[in-house]
């Protein structure tokens, strides 16, 4: 009567550490980790970066002061090398998911456009079970790829520009200064920056959302409680809007369209001491 379970002999279930399958599995995990963590790292860097660039809002002095501080301590030089590496590592690992063939890419786009009516449990009251809308997360991914490609180009240019700045400083030049930056931005590069800003913030926002969903959804965390799509989505949207607004205002200042709005505030605080 008992069912024979000996169909799967010992050898098959006994593996050693070095087996091919194990090594392959390890590599897959490593790739996923690298693409995820470099992405998150870049996103965190962008927050810090934004803090630095937006210091222009409080006036040129602060901007110059911080730039000088970083360059002086060689932090800027280290960072730009590190970031450039991370930037390309992320590009290489993350884009392993992008289908090579045009037909496949078209397939995804087609599906993204045609799948409708996700029930969208996480932000919908039960009015009706079926609500017809395009499936946003699939479409977001398509735009994530597109924005990533844009970042690759625009970001490289930007890295080259600021890189030369920093290099000049190391060779005894002026380095990054408010004057130089405003000059650049004002002379038309603002176009590049607006594009880069939107791409980066969008890409990072969606990336973080996806990252959180991939690794933490359903987990009980202190303060937040259970991680849900609804919560992560809300956080993502908040961050996205917040940084785009700051970025745009900063760009406007850099382009000389408006005066640094926080300059007087800064002056009050520091009591005109600078």
């Amino acid at each position: 009567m008992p069912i024979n379970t000996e169909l799967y002999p010992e050898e098959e279930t006994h593996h050693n550490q070095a087996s091919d399958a194990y090594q392959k599995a390890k590599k897959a995990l490593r790739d996923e980790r690298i693409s995820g963590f470099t992405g998150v790292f870049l996103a965190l860097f962008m927050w810090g970066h934004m803090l630095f660039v937006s210091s222009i809002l409080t006036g040129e002095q602060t901007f110059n002061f911080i730039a000088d501080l970083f360059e002086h301590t060689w932090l800027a030089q280290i960072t730009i090398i590190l970031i450039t590496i991370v930037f390309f590592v992320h590009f290489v690992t993350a884009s392993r998911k992008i289908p090579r063939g045009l037909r496949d890419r078209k397939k995804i786009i087609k599906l993204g456009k045609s799948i409708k009516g996700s029930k969208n449990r996480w932000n919908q009251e039960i009015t009706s079970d079926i609500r017809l809308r395009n499936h946003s997360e699939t479409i977001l991914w398509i735009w994530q790829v597109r924005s990533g490609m844009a970042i690759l180009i625009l970001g490289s240019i930007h890295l080259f520009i600021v890189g030369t700045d920093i290099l000049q400083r190391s060779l005894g030049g002026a380095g990054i200064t408010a004057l130089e930056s405003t000059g650049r931005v004002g002379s038309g590069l603002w176009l590049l920056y607006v594009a880069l800003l939107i791409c980066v913030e969008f890409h990072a926002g969606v990336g973080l959302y996806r990252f959180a969903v991939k690794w933490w959804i359903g987990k009980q965390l202190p303060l937040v409680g259970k991680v849900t799509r609804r919560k992560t989505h809300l956080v993502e949207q908040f961050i996205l809007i917040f940084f785009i607004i700051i970025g745009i205002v900063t760009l406007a200042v850099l382009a000389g369209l408006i005066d640094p709005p926080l300059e007087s505030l800064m002056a009050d605080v520091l009591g005109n001491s600078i």
Partner: protein
Amino acid sequence: MGRTLTFKIFRYNPNKDNDSPQVESYQMEETQRLNVFTALNTLRETQASDLMFDFVCRAGICGSCGMMINGRPTLACRTLTSDLPETIELYPLPFFKLLGDLSVDTGIWFREMAEKVESWIHTQEEFDPQATEERMDNDIANKIYEAERCIECGCCLAGCATVQVYPDFLGAAGLNRIGRLMNDPRDQRGDQEWFELVSTESGVFGCIGMMACDDVCPKDLPLLEVFSYIRRKLSKIELSK
């Protein structure tokens, strides 16, 4: 009530010579509490005797009737026409092999998936007919059941852009099956075996988080939670080595 519904149905019979895919329209008076199951059967009995589609249980439990209804992969038997606009577009599920009209071959894919994930309890213990059963915590039993509820309808696969491009990817249903087995104390597969099985590009890292699976699953399975559980578990296994 009193609406006249227009069904636009994808028609193609691969077994018929010279048949080419097309969309045909049928009209029908809407009746009270009409669902797509009843509607399609009525159409077959009155207007299109050769219309192909699959229903078995017509109660939302066997998973036969997945199709694209106005662009959404879902179970036809539990879709009420009153929830839909007057024009109802029906397409077969993408991804699976088309057998004809609205009927696709899900059986083969799921059997292969079961073979790939070795979807049975791996145990060295022989069953002893005389012994009392092994004890199990009721909470664990409930947890296993939660994942076991998948009815293999294929909607999650039809909605997932990734699996359409990488057919080797086990998809949400496959990963869910693995999650179910990982949680089962009776399955004696060790960390390393799980690691090799699921820490791959056709396993959990094939998923890029499109999340459509979670949105369309008619059984409301917590698919994303299963994936993140698996990811964390793999990480833990790797770190502990």
